């Protein structure tokens, strides 16, 4: 698995779909590839948000601690991006992410990511577009709940 495959993975992420391949390569090159064993934590709820992770292989669960043990919110598979909201908002982690199979992920460092955003407007616009999109989805969901 080389940089090229990582770039392919990045391209699957909606946020980065429009971004120039050379920039994605830079993003991949400045990121680290890390392996997590089955059950190893990506991060815990409340940790400082220092990186986002792009899952390349394997699966990871997003959980919250409930009174009767952890509640699984979502299961993330290949090409899923996790933790990006935390690094953009500079807030502590809102949930815990744990590998449920041996998992390989691309760790995108917060500082480097912000550096790239400020350097390349194209990436910044892509991120904004994705965030606006999500906001609109949320609005729609909210409207549905009100009407429903």
């Amino acid at each position, binding site marked *: 698995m080389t940089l090229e495959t990582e770039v392919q993975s990045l391209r699957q992420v909606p946020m980065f779909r429009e971004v120039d391949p050379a920039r994605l390569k*830079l993003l991949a090159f*400045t990121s680290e590839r890390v392996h997590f064993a089955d059950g*190893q934590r990506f991060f815990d709820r409340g940790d400082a948000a220092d990186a986002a992770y792009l899952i390349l292989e394997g699966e990871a669960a997003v959980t919250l601690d409930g009174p009767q043990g952890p509640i699984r919110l979502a299961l993330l598979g290949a090409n899923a991006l996790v933790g990006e909201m935390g690094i953009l908002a500079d807030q502590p982690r809102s949930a815990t992410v744990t590998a449920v199979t041996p998992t390989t992920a691309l760790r995108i460092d917060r500082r480097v990511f912000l550096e790239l955003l400020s350097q390349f407007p194209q990436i910044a616009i892509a991120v904004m577009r994705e965030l606006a999109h999500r906001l609109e989805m949320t609005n729609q969901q909210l409207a549905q709940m009100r009407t429903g």
Partner: protein
Amino acid sequence: MSGGAGAAERTGGGVAGEAPTVGRASRAGGNPTGQERTGQERIGHEPAGRELATAKTGNRPEGGNDPEAADSSGGLDRSLFRYIWRHSKRDQILICAVVLASLPLYFASLDLPRRIVNEAIQGHAFEKGNETAKFLILRLQVPDWFGGERLLFPGFDVDRFELLFGLSSMFLLLVLINGAFKYWINVAKGALGERMLRRLRYQLFSLIMRFSPDALRHTKASEVATIIRDEVEPIGGFIGDAYILPAFLGTQAATAMTFILLQNVWLGLLAAGVVGVQFVVIPRLRRELLRLGRQRQLASRRLAGRVGEVVDGIAAVHSNGAEAWERAEIGHRLGSLFDLRLRIYRRKFMVKFLNNLLAQMTPFLFYCIGGYFALKGQLSIGQLVAVIAAYRDLPPPLKELIDWDQQRLDVQVKYEQVLQQFLPERLLGLDAPGRDESLCGRLAVEGVGVQEPHGPVLTNVSLALPLPSVIGIVSDGGPAASTFARVLARRATPTSGRVTLEDHDLAEWSGAALTRRIAYAGVDPILFPGSLRENIVYGLNRRPPETAETDAKVLAEARRTGNPVEPFPADWTDYAQAGVTDAAALDALVLDWLTRIGMGEEVYRFGLLGQVDPERHADLAARLIEARTAFRERLAAEGHAHLVEPFDPARYNRQATVAENLLFGVPTTTALTGRALAEHPVVRLVLDRTGLADDLVTMGERIAATMLEIFRGLPSGHPLFEQFSFLSADELPEYEAILARRTATEASAERHGTSAFERLRRRWIGLGRYGSADATRLIALPLAYIEPRHRLGLIDDAFRERVVEARGQLRAALDEAGMGGVDFYVPDKVCAAAPLRDNLLFGRINQSVADAVETVTATGTALVQEMQLAPAITRVGLDHQVGPEGRFLSSTQRAVVSLVRALIRRPDLLVLDGALSPLGEARARTVLGLLLERFGRENSLVVVLPNDRVADRFELVLRASGTAIQGPERPRGQAASPGEAGPGAGVAGPAAAVSGHAGGETGPEPARVEQDVKA
């Protein structure tokens, strides 16, 4: 050691306070109770040696052996010539004598060619039909009244050929002898100059040590450095010639002059007149030159000072964006320097022109006037020719004399300029031997005032303090508290009033004794480049080692030049003052203090990054190998074996760079470090032989192409470049060009083949420029490549095998070349060039496993704890380099170093003037608690406090207000009155329990010493 005490006794109490210590030492020595006593005995003896050392330095405070250096001006005469004569008359006279002795032989060698031609070749010696002639007739010329000429040796009978060869051999012999003379004279002159230079530089340096605070305020470090380094240099060059050259040339010129005078008085007077003009007029013209020279010297010295200032304050320059201003300032200075230089040149060459003119005028006058006399019949033609011939011999020595004179003036100016910086009024008085008693008793401050240039800081302070005690001075925000503390620490001199201890003025104490008994730690710790340990024990470097194993020649040379004769480098540490017996105990003591003050963890970390010298830390080195295996086993047992890839001579380490895999060791020279490896001839040879060079070029090409692709568009200087790129921003175009050349060359080669003719053709059309230099640049790139980290997919198993193969070859080739430069990884040996941590791990952590570093570190820490390696590792941490002015340390660490430096000396009085503030409030409070526990029994502590939050923890509190100091008052919860206080009486609280023997005894207290060592 007993020798030290004995010697002290023999010196017979030259220093006050010596006697009781010696007495105690001998009592301890006479005590037969064995083992337990020896510790005390040593400690008892050491101070005696120390006192002796003080007595010695008291007598000659410059540390040198030159009594003249001790006079008020530090042994520098007003006149350079007097200075030279004073210190080198013996050598000057000796060299002069040798020069004179060489003259007859020199003249003989000039005369011999005539004899060879006349007597041997033309045969004048055989004129009267003689078959043979006498050779080597030795005659002794004595005055007639003593019997006239006396024949010593009648000579050999020789024929013409024998005479020719004989005379020629003699000529050769004389040439050799003259050469030998010349050689000796040059070496002697050179040595003389260098010796004087050494003496001068050393004296100047000694004088800097004596600069008064006021002089120091006006002194720029870089300017003084320039004086000692550059400005005295030409003086040294001149000293060898100072007396000899004028003596030699003067005689020569005088001889020629006398000869002319003897031939014809008028012509002689004429020549003398011209020479006189040269000697009178030209120096006058040169006076202006001297003035300019003086200005130039000052200007260039100021330039050096200014550059030094800018470099020291470069951070401020950058943060204020004043680069352009500074550049303009320096540019202006350079402009005026240029202007000065130009004026000097104009003047100098004008003088030279005049000089030449006068020299050329004389022959004209000779021909003209001499010819007139000759025509008139008052002078024979022969005489005229002889005079002109003699005059031809006059200019060269005269010219040299004038040059010498020029140099003399120049050097004299330089010397005077240097002297200006070292005027006696800028210097402190010499340290005279005086009292040396423990600072216990009633310390009285009587009407002390301190006047600063901007106004009074302290006025009429009178108070009494019982020592030992712990005293806080609460500042009111003004400078008074700090100044008063500095007066107590003898860092500031009161402008009025005096400080007495038990009715003896502190001025009666010898300076050396006071500096030993008082320690001061201020706001700005002063650190020197060197290790942490060197900086901490700096205050103990006071005892020159007694075993002088120094070379007798070196010693004699030092004596001749008034330099110090104490051995250096050597261990100067005064262990006794710290209360320990050897270096290991001292280290333990230092580490104990550092740990207590809260820097132990940091020093431990320094230790992990430090290097283990297998010779100095033999024990630790052996245990590291043991720990290495244990580490591996432990990781395996915890199921973490995959987190570390060990160094294995037979395997490629995937987590290490290509260069590391190739060298399989740590480079110790820059020629094998980083990209330089690609240029190393031996490395290249091996790379070419194993075919790796081609692989690396291809890899370099791919890396360069990728970097060009992904980093294009980032502004240069962007942090991402530095952090991630294989290329720096300004290298991008260069590598782009290399790639273009390579592509073009390859394309052409594909099309037209690779024959020699084609290569030539390509070069002709400008294509073939891709060559070995480009290849080297490309090879340099993949050296830092790690596949799992950079993920460019460049390395396969075949490449790894080849690298491992090349590794062996490279080692063999480097060994064969005998250049060294690599400390190879050997599984059962410590790699001295690698950090301790790497030696423990002996492998690389697999960075691509999440949290690998944390997990491995935790295992390592547990192992270190289990094997109890931490103390040894922390000791290695003491070797940590602090950098220039301690810049490699944080300000907190610097403050701790400065504090421990003061504590380790166990001073009678420790003055902390803002030394705790860099520690932060909480930590400062802890440290203060620690100090309060230790001080107050035999040693006093004075702390300047920013406010009275912690004032109640002190026995006595003084308060500054304006220019006055009020107190002492006794804070709540402290008993007894401070007024009438015998020594040790003011001690309160827990300290009282041990204060029994604190009284008038001098020297360190054995009980306390042991307590410290154990701690």
